[in-house]
Each structure stands twice: as structure tokens, then as C-alpha cells.
């Protein structure tokens, strides 16, 4: 059973549709008991950071997310919330990765980054099993996680940033696998079957 964390994230329905296509059983939930019992957890995320974090506090999910030991995949804002601090709205994240998010500079590039960008796989990881380095995935973000020791894949947009991270059971992708065609479905399948 896959738990998709329900906290009002904009891409929840699309993530659920993708998991359904893969044929895996899932539940969209914010109940502690259900999340703890799930084999895998998906933490979606689209929207504004400070209101998302506020919602997680209201649902009492912040501490639970920190201590989970089952594999968890954070998507887009879900991955950014792994950080210490999110500069969008200046709020504290989960502190799983000891770094703060940054914003693309509109003096250099169009912000938000909207569209398909190449993802370079920098370190072998089950998440990218069968996916070649340099494939396109769909991004929609103004903020990013800088390179750090948990970066497993990078993309370039103004700067080189983390397009995927992995620390212990925490996996994160900045792009939207649920909107990235066949490669995206393969990545979600890898998370479910191999991580």
C-alpha cells in the first residue's frame, strides 16, 4: 500500500492517477496510523511554500514526516520541504537536508522555470534504474535546492541545481514524474519497486 500524503497539494490528483496507471494500491490520507503502516509514502507538492508548511503543522504531520523510516518520495515542493529553510515565505522545513532553498534569478532566466529540462544522473540510484542520464522531465518551479552531498541528479537553469536527492529513506525530485510522460512513470515505478 502506498500512502499519498493529503495536505491540499495541487498535484495530488495527478500523482494518484499515475500510481493508478502503474497498478499499485494507494490511499490519499493525512492520518498518522495509515501513513505509518504504508509500505511507501509519496509526499506531493505544488503551491506556495509557507501555506503548505502551515497546513502540515495544522495536520500535525511535521514531526511524523521527520521520523518516518519507510521510503518516502517528495515531489517538487515536497522535496524542497526536506530543507532547513524555505526562502519562499521564509519558513522552516523538515531539516532533513542541511541546506536552504534558493530562487532562480529573473535577471538571468525566465522565472518560474516552466517546461522540460534535461536531468543528469550524477550517482547511481535505484530511482533512476533504466533511465538514461540526460532524459527530459517536466519542471514548474521558481525555487530550487542547491547542490549538496545528497544530490543524485542535477539540471541546469541559470545555475546547476539538485533535480533529485536521496538521504537514507528520503528520496526527492524537483520535477514532476506524474507529468513527465513515460520516463516519469518509470521513475515512480522504480520508487515503488526498487527503493
Amino acid at each position: 500500500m502506498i500512502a499519498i500524503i493529503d495536505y491540499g497539494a495541487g498535484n495530488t490528483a495527478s500523482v494518484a492517477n499515475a500510481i493508478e496507471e502503474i497498478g499499485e494500491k494507494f490511499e490519499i490520507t493525512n492520518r498518522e496510523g495509515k501513513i505509518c503502516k504504508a509500505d511507501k509514502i509519496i509526499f506531493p507538492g505544488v503551491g506556495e511554500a509557507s501555506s503548505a508548511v502551515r497546513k502540515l503543522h495544522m495536520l500535525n504531520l511535521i514531526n511524523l514526516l521527520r521520523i518516518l523510516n519507510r521510503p518516502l518520495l517528495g515531489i517538487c515542493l515536497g522535496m524542497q520541504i526536506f530543507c532547513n529553510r524555505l526562502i519562499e515565505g521564509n519558513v522552516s522545513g523538515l531539516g532533513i537536508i542541511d541546506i536552504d532553498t534558493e530562487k532562480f534569478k529573473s535577471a538571468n532566466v525566465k522565472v518560474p522555470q516552466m517546461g522540460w529540462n534535461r536531468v543528469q544522473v550524477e550517482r547511481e540510484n535505484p530511482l533512476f534504474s533504466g533511465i538514461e542520464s540526460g532524459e527530459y522531465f517536466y519542471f514548474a518551479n521558481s525555487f530550487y535546492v542547491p547542490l549538496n552531498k545528497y544530490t543524485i541528479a542535477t539540471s541546469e537553469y541559470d545555475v546547476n541545481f539538485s533535480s533529485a536527492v536521496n538521504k537514507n529513506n528520503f528520496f526527492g525530485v524537483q520535477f514532476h514524474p506524474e507529468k513527465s510522460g513515460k520516463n516519469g512513470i518509470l521513475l515512480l515505478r522504480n520508487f515503488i519497486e526498487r527503493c
Partner: protein
Amino acid sequence: MLAKRIIPCLDVKDGRVVKGINFINLKDAGSAIELAERYSDEGADELVFLDITATQEKRNILIDLVKQVAKVIRIPFTVGGGIKSSDEIDEILKAGADKVSLNSSIVKTPGLIDEASKRFGSQAIVAAIDVKKSGDNYKVYVEGGRKETSLDGLSWCIEVCERGAGEILLTWMDKDGTRSGYDLEFLKKLGEEVTIPIIASGGAGNMMHFYEAFHKAETDACLAAGLFHYGEMKIGDLKSFLINKGIEIRL
């Protein structure tokens, strides 16, 4: 860097596609789902659905369509057509759309851009702007190009950007359907003035027109309807052409 995007646009009425229904080999030519799947398979980077239904039940039919499309399509899609409030946007996004495009409603209530981009994030809000040339400048039109406003095209584009829109979908009403190419001069000028991505629409007649928009005017995406619908141009062929010309394109 980001790939340049090719976006087919589907006009839907009462849940059915009304333009571009002479595709061959379709089981149900008016099925939005089947056309969407077909474009997605051919390599479309995104899809836009423009709802032109005028009836009272409009919203329910549209929501139902969005839900069905979201079930089968694994690329981003935008929904537009008569969306007036933040709550309507919420409903459409929850049904599975990635973005909404707003046109007449933001001319009437510009604050809707600020409100919606704060609530849903800029990436979900596309400002659709229809312009017609008026002397050396451009005037903004609303209600499907029927009504002229007092807004200047370039100033309005800058304003929607400042208010928090995530993208501009710019349509030249007088170019639409003419197949004479995009207005490169205006596109280039606009690209220098705004800091958000621009989708150019209206006027493309051949592959060179797309190339010029990407290469000369540095636009981020091109949207077309009739050209793809009537099978005159295949998305795959267009993409190969652009790659051969050195444009960054996703295959």
C-alpha cells in the same frame, strides 16, 4: 537548459472537441480524450483546452472532462474559457489540470491574478492576452476578440507579470488563421520587458515560422490549433525540423 515547447490547443464545447475533427483513424472524432492522447503520443509538450461552452451546466461538464483527461494524459495541460474566480480555479486544478488560463476576467478584475498566484502558485496561472495591431501599438481585446479595451498590449503584459502570472499566452487576433507567421518584432520586445515565459499563438503557417519565433524572437513556446488539427503538420515532423535547425527540443 529548457526545451522549447510545442503546444496544440483544443477547443471544446459541451465536453467535445469542435475544431480539428477530420483526423483520420479516430474512433470518435469529437472525443477530447482520444485527441489528447494522440497529441501526447505524437510528442506534444503540453496541451491547452479552451472551453467555449455557453450553457449553464458548463462548469460541471468541464470538470468532468478535466478529470477524464487527467486520468489518461501524462503531460501537463492548461484549461481556459470563462474562468472568473479563485474558487473556480481551485475546482479545475483539483480535478487534475496543471494550470488555468485567464483572459477576460483578469481584464475586468486584475486583482484575481494576485489572489490566484498567491493561493495556487504562479506556475498554475497563465495570463491569456488577445491583441490586435492599432497603429504602431497593440490593443487588448476581450470576449474572444469581440470587444476592444483601452489597455495597451505591452503595458498589460508587463502588468500581469508584475501581479504574479506564471506565463503569458499571447494571441494576435488579426494574425490568427492567416498563416503569415508570428509577429516577431513584438515577441522580441515583449521578451525583453517581461521575466516570465511567453507562449506565442496565432499566425503560424509553416515550420519556418516556429523556427523564427524560437530563434529570432527567443519565445519559450508556440501554440497552434488548425495546423495540427487538420493533419497538415505532424508534431513529430515539426520537432525533427527544429532539432535539425539547432533548436533545443524534447523528442
